């Protein structure tokens, strides 16, 4: 039976080697578009071409043709990199995956679960520390408990207290205990709501993000709409009108961007020019931020790397978040001020680019490209409002001196950071 995944393995190996599609295609004497078809398993490949590609990728041809489960191997490498101190035999990972595929899957699944749990812990820590409603409720409860404890101790310890004072303190106890009951009910209601799958969202924006994520940020209807004047309607899956409005505003913007940068032309341009938003903005004669938004909506199987996107207003509040693995975006608390996103706000209309590294055990590098642009065309007498947008792309070749950035201070292990706002719960290496 013909193995239908040879192309996927080639793509996997090429990405691992940090090689662009066009580069590999040229080296083996075929066009990039033909290699693209091969990589998407739409053309068969064997014989000399397979041998040439294997040679360029420095792998055994059998790894491409028979496949020691390239995806599995990649995940094992990833897991091994996280536990480098255990000195796993990375050079024999192919052999391990071939001989013990079941155990290999156990390792990769466990590794994936650990990652998910770590992410959940980060999110929960972030929430407990920065959720303003929870913090306000807890402060109120502690104040009432303090008043009750102090008053009760007076009544208990002072046997000769005057009747009018005794009556006054009894009344205070009664008032505080009632308020305490109401506050605790309010907290329980809030936490119950958070536990409910429907309401496990702190704000309408979170609900919209879940919706976009479940659609992989790609909407075929908005791609094909030929009349941008007709705003798309979001399906009625939201629990609030506010979320519905945000989703429709997103889809309207999506439709406008898609009309200016149709998917076919966009993919062709990316193949020719790469994903540099400035070059693409010149090609399509659109703002750089529009290109960034558009890149974040393209199907991932058409791109060499996953693409993350984040935008903020001039106050630093995050307005939109498309997260990618390894670059967490805080939900409630302030983000790291060293992100190029915020540097862009200091230099409106000037593209800012930096290779950054998120520290910790799973340190990864990202190419971050940002720009701050006015929300609307400038007019005399109107103060401009700027928003900044940042594209986040994983780096395949690590650079020696990246800028060290974090997610948010609370969960950032970097020591001696001049931008630190508060103490971290993590230490370097966590």
């Amino acid at each position, binding site marked *: 039976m013909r193995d239908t995944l040879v192309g996927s393995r080639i793509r996997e190996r090429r990405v691992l080697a940090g090689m662009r599609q066009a580069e590999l295609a040229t080296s083996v004497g075929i066009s990039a578009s033909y290699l693209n078809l091969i990589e998407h398993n739409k053309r068969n490949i064997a014989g000399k071409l397979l041998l040439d590609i294997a040679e360029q990728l420095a792998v055994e041809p059998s790894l491409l043709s028979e496949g020691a489960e390239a995806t599995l191997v990649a995940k094992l490498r990833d897991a091994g990199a996280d536990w480098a101190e255990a000195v796993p035999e990375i050079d024999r990972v192919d052999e391990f995956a071939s001989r013990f595929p079941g155990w290999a899957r156990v390792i990769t699944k466990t590794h994936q679960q650990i990652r998910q749990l770590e992410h959940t812990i980060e999110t929960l820590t972030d929430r407990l520390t920065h959720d303003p409603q929870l913090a306000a409720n807890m402060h109120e409860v502690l*104040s009432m408990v*303090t008043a009750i404890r*102090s008053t009760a101790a*007076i009544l208990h310890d002072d046997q000769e207290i005057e009747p009018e*004072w005794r009556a006054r*303190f009894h009344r205070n106890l009664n008032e*505080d205990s009632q308020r305490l009951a109401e506050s605790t009910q309010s907290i329980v209601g809030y936490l119950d709501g958070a536990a409910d799958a429907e309401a496990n969202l702190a704000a309408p924006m979170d609900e919209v993000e879940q919706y976009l994520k479940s659609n992989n940020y790609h909407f075929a209807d908005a791609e094909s709409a030929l009349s941008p004047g007709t705003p798309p309607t979001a399906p009625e899956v939201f629990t609030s009108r506010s979320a519905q409005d945000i989703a429709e505003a997103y889809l309207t913007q999506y439709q406008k961007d898609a009309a200016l940068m149709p998917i076919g032309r966009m993919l062709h341009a990316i193949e020719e020019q790469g994903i540099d938003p400035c070059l693409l903005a010149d090609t399509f004669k659109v703002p750089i931020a529009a290109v960034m938004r558009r890149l974040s909506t393209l199907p991932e199987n058409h791109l060499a790397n996953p693409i993350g996107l984040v935008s903020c207003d001039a106050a630093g509040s995050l307005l939109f978040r498309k997260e990618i693995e390894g670059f967490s975006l805080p939900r409630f608390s302030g983000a790291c001020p060293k992100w190029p996103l915020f540097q862009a706000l200091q230099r409106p209309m000037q593209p800012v680019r930096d290779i950054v590294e998120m520290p910790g055990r799973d340190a990864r590098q990202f190419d971050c490209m940002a720009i701050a642009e006015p929300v609307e065309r400038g007019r005399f007498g109107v103060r401009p409002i700027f928003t900044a947008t940042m594209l986040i792309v994983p780096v395949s070749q690590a650079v020696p001196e990246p800028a060290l950035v974090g997610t948010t201070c609370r969960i950032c292990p970097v020591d001696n950071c001049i931008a630190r706002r508060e103490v971290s719960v993590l230490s370097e290496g966590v």
Partner: protein
Amino acid sequence: MGKRVLLIEDEPNIIEAISFILSRDGWDVATHSNGHDAIDAVHARAPDVVILDVMLPGKSGYDILSELRADTHTQNLPVLILTARGQSKDREMAERVGASRFMTKPFANADVLNAVKELVAP
């Protein structure tokens, strides 16, 4: 007349309880319940010791304390910080801005009384 203590706190029943405990012990207690003009209250009352809540309407206890420390008339005034937040970073913050003592809510009445006594002991 006992020594003067100024209690700056916005929760009325805590004010009442602490005022009662200190008055019973012979202290001359004055109270103030917001951050806006807390500095004015300190100057007007000229207390021997201040009990200062952190989360106050108008201005935080830390900001008030910073201003007190920047003023030569109050830079050495004993100040006991009371807060519902007892994490190490809150304690560090209190030390940084010049708190004489730091106490977390809920507290024992005897602890507050002892702390205040120690702060004005010769």
